[in-house]
């Protein structure tokens, strides 16, 4: 094995002589780039601005009249708002996979790798931009909910926890999306994640009460991560008892980030060194 063989590790080498602050500056530049992409892609804008409002309107006015909220005793808008908040941020977060796959399969990653920067800032920039735009999308959905008659008695502390949950949720989903975007070999395959993320809230307690579902679906709905998140949001926004939902939510989100970030890092290293 000659000396050339060691170049496999050079792809993500830390630049000597550049401080942590330079990397922070590089990361900021790539976040700005990703947000510019967002602002210039009509379908991304629709996903992040129009979709949250449309989902809210459809659930409250179209389905709302026909769906009972079961034993919860809630009005349907109160019942469904937490799930719609999660849908609003989640779909956009899943698009991170396609954004990363575009950079990885086109020539852009080669350009970034020949620059004197640590190339991990490329996927990291996409993830941070995703968190920013999807938290904004969730806030837009919340404003639409309030305009449609949703009222919350939450305290400042409870609102802060709602925000923390939403940030954690879009961060975990964006990190999973990054992993998927680094795993697949095409932009089309990267889009498949959006389908799963869009579908998951329907199979939770968020849209219709799980107690109305057939037993197999009900078992799935009660044990998948969206359900405790919906229950935690209901508890915080509507003053309902939280039970174990808060801890389960924290566990799911932490696991999502803690597992997907290192795996994504390994995949990224493999993709940029072969």
């Amino acid at each position, binding site marked *: 094995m000659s000396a*050339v063989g060691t170049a496999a590790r050079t792809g993500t080498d830390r*630049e000597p002589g550049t401080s942590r602050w330079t990397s922070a500056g*590089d990361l900021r530049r790539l976040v700005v780039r990703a947000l510019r992409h967002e602002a210039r892609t009509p379908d991304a804008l629709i996903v992040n601005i129009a979709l949250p409002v449309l989902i809210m309107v459809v659930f409250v006015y179209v389905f709302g009249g026909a769906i009972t909220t079961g034993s919860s005793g809630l009005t349907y808008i109160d019942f469904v708002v937490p799930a719609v908040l999660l849908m609003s941020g989640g779909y956009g977060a899943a698009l991170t996979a396609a954004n990363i796959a575009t950079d990885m399969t086109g020539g852009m990653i*080669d350009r970034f790798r020949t*620059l004197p920067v640590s190339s991990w800032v490329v996927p990291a920039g996409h993830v941070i931009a995703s968190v920013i735009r999807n938290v904004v999308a969730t806030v837009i959905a919340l404003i639409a909910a309030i305009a449609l008659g949703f009222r919350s008695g939450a305290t400042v502390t409870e609102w802060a926890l709602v925000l923390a949950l939403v940030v954690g949720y879009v961060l975990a989903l964006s990190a999973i999306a990054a992993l998927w975007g680094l795993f697949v070999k095409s932009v089309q395959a990267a889009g498949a994640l959006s389908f799963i993320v869009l579908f998951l809230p329907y199979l939770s307690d968020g849209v219709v009460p799980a107690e109305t579902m057939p037993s197999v679906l009900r078992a799935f709905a009660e044990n998948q991560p969206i359900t405790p998140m919906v229950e935690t949001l209901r508890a915080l926004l509507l003053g309902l008892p939280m039970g174990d939902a808060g801890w389960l939510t924290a566990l799911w989100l932490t696991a999502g980030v803690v597992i997907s970030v290192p795996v994504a890092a390994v995949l990224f290293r493999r993709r940029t060194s*072969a």
Partner: protein
Amino acid sequence: MHDVAIRARGLSKSFGGTPVLTGVDLTVPAGSLLALLGPNGSGKTTTVRILTTLLAADGGTATVGGHDVARESVAVRRTIGLTAQQATVDDLLTGRENLELFGGLYHLGGRAARRRAGELLDRFDLSAAANRRVATYSGGMRRRLDLAASMVAAPRILFLDEPTTGLDPRSRAELWTVIRELLAAGTTILLTTQYLEEADQLADRIAVIDNGRVAADDTPAALKRQVGSERLALRLARAEDVPRAGAALSAGPGDAAGLRLDADAREVTLAGQGPDHLRRTLDVLHRAGIPVEHVDLRTPTLDDVFFELTAAA
């Protein structure tokens, strides 16, 4: 001018057991342009990716700007610019935003990055389109922007991987002008191409690469001399006569050195050796009852060189 900018020794690389490079040696003196000439799949891009630290070789060594590509990749990256085959500019950003982004990532500082972007847009004739998104650019403009992006940090050594593939003749000529200017300003350039004319036009030296190894490495003039001073080209009246003509010439009294048959073009070519040789050749064909439609004596093109070098291997 005797400094060596790029030196590769015995580079080898396999993908999934298939050898792509089998011992590539290259030397590029500082301030010169080497054209790496070869067909698709010959190993041109793999060579460039190894030299630009994007890919690890399986064996061999290489230095770029005096730095080892394997052990000093960061130092190499500070020295080089790369225009890869795939577009390496951002479609959704404007030309100016692209150059400012790369300037920022080279840590030029905000003001310096903006000034450098402006200079490069002027120099590569893109000022009018500076504030338009790259998605609206023509193929030629995009390649010029790609080249400008590679020049942001004023690299001493530039790698251009098939810079003119897919461009119309006018855009190609414009890009050639830009490449000549960069060369005149002292930049060392390694350019890959499948166009023999391009290599002939631009290069100080041409390395012909085929099946993962360098089949020839010389000046364009010397490579042309290798196939003789001129080529005798005979266009036959009937395509079906071509194989028979080949057989007759090989068996006949004339010298059939460098014989090549092209049934599609109804053409038989061989190394030209003066008027007597021409007369003998025509006699052979006449006796074999093969009508000749057109006779041409021409200087060899790099196509001829390429054919000689790669067909023999």
